[in-house]
């Protein structure tokens, strides 16, 4: 591990010195080159994301491009492999001379490449920000709330919208995300003055019955849960937890999960964009049209892709003069907030050392093995 880290640092240092010599991303004719690092193969698979970003750019290109120049997306698959992710970023920056990164969706990109992006003075607008580094870096601003802002919104929904006093948390924690979870819980406590009745972050694979029995004994009224869906809810039904409200995160918001939740249980999920299962919601018409026309898989991630591409094009159009890496970065740092109907708060890059512009979540509930969108609209902690 130590050896590979040293290797990565050496490669990054080499790349930086190369960057200083080349005039990366400053050509003024030909297409505007944009890059993205996506998990297409491997454990975190989002092949629909680069497809959707390309579809938006195609639409812009058909209408004449931006100031007569077409936009070209160069997507690299990192297969959730740290080495491939580092190489992909360097290749995009050095060989392809991209002016920005738009629509990345990788579980490892932000953490590994944040320094490279910072040193190269390039901005990244990921379609899906996964790890905490996506929300704490000066040159990265995702278009989703991310797991931690979402958690604050889920807690707020449990205590303020559903009005429960005993809110419990049964979570499985990935290495490195424990601090983010603590910060999210603290933010909720600061806003509401409430505390968790139970906080158990040891849920893993195995029989969930002991946890469910403990939750029942502790009198939990709402349970936040983020691990495997099938056995947990099958056993929750057996143990008689029909009067508890279960709240899950966006990662559990899939059609397959709705199918396996037994009747009679109250199961909610917080979503990052307007719930994708209802195409009539504000902002979803545009997304649905793009993915339908291009036969792209309908997922929440493809919503993020369309949004990232849209805000990029919108900011790109404000640039007067040459479109270079420098002018694009400057435009994002000086931009005005964009009201995008698919999310709860306006999106802005802006100056600053950390960016987490999107907050709040809209909630869905399982009814008859389908996700049903709840009428409350976006729940933004401290504002609803």
């Amino acid at each position, binding site marked *: 591990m130590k050896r590979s880290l040293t290797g990565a640092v050496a490669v990054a240092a080499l790349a930086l010195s190369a960057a200083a010599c080349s005039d990366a991303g400053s050509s003024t004719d030909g297409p505007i080159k944009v890059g993205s690092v996506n998990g297409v193969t491997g*454990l975190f*698979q989002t092949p629909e994301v680069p497809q959707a970003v390309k579809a938006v750019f195609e639409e812009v290109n058909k209408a004449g491009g931006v100031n007569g120049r077409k936009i070209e997306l160069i997507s690299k698959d990192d297969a959730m492999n740290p080495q491939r992710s580092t190489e992909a970023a360097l290749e995009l920056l050095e060989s392809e001379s991209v002016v920005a990164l738009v629509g990345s969706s990788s579980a490892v990109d932000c953490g590994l490449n944040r320094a490279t992006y910072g040193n190269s003075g390039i901005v990244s607008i990921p379609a899906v920000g996964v790890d905490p580094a996506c929300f704490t870096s000066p040159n990265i601003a995702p278009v989703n709330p991310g797991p931690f802002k979402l958690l604050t919104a889920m807690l707020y929904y449990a205590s303020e919208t559903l009005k429960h006093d005993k809110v419990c948390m049964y979570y499985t924690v990935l290495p490195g995300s424990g601090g983010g979870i603590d910060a999210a819980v603290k933010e909720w406590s600061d806003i509401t003055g409430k505390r968790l009745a139970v906080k*158990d*972050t*040891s849920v*893993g*694979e*195995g*029989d*969930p*019955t*002991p*946890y*469910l*029995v*403990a939750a*029942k*004994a502790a009198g939990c009224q709402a349970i936040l849960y983020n691990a*495997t*869906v*099938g*056995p947990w809810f*099958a*056993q929750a*039904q*057996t*143990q*008689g937890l029909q009067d508890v409200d279960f709240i899950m995160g966006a*990662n*559990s918001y*899939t059609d*397959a*999960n709705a*199918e*396996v939740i037994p009747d009679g249980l109250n199961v909610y999920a917080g979503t990052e964009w307007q719930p994708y299962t209802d195409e009539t919601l504000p902002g979803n018409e545009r997304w649905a049209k793009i993915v339908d026309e291009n036969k792209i898989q309908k997922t929440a991630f493809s919503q993020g892709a369309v949004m990232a591409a849209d805000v990029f094009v919108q900011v790109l159009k404000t640039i007067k003069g040459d479109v270079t890496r420098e002018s694009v970065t400057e435009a994002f740092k000086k931009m005005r907030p964009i009201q995008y109907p698919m999310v709860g708060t306006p999106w802005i890059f802006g100056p600053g050392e950390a960016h987490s512009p999107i907050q709040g979540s809209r909630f869905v509930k399982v009814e008859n093995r389908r996700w049903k969108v709840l009428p409350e609209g976006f729940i933004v902690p401290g504002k609803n």
Partner: protein
Amino acid sequence: MVNSVIAGLTGGGVYALLGLCVVLTYRLVAVVNFAMAAVGAMGAFVMVSLMDAGLGVWLALLAGVISGGALSALLGAVLVRWFGDHDERTKAAVTVALYVALMAIGLRLFGSTTTGARRFPRPFDAPAFTVGDVVVPQSVLVSLAFAVLITVGVGMLLNRTSVGLRLQALSERPATAQVVGIAAPRLAVAVWAAIGAISALVILLVAPRLGGDFSTLGKLITTALAVAMVGAFRSLPMTLAGGLLMGCLEGFTASLGAVQQYRGVVPFLVIVVLLWWRSRHEVWDTAHSR
């Protein structure tokens, strides 16, 4: 705490079933089968996929069990035909390779943890009785009964019947068995088929408790091997007890704040200690030769 231990104990039956499958395979065909859970999961997913397509439960169950058996028979045929003369380690390595292949195929065919969750039939889900705060469903009793059936049934088969005698001969001295006229390849493949069918049934029984997607079910082999270790890959009753112990330990660790974080590790630590304790009087070169 008592509630948590009881809650854990209700999961003991399914852990025992997993361990018994491994020990059973080892006793009958002398192979540590790393692909056991993945083969069973294939059978189970054939069943739920057919049910999703509209087939009746019983026909789907039959199809699922037969496909588990057929896949296992195929693996058995490969092992008998091409690796018959090799030692246990090579055979185990072959099953590891098959495990990796099956997991990749399963992920592609049936989806990941979030996209591939399936609804498994839960015919025995009605509450049987309640102990403290814990509702004990009938499925717990069914799992335990099935585990006892395997323990007693296989024990009797091996010790009391002529087929059992031939199987023992085959698993311990395959070459000699063939010399004295036991039709080794055919019998071995038949046994593999039966093991595959039982694995599919076991995975169907454990799925509502331990995982609803292919990769989680396939990975249950680690738990199964840990339980099998308690029985030292030999004793069926000890394996049954090992499963119950595993359940208790999981419940116990879940209830203690101090060790909660290490819930996944504690059962394995205890098993290591148990193995050491069991082998404390053994002399190393005799104890480890079969």
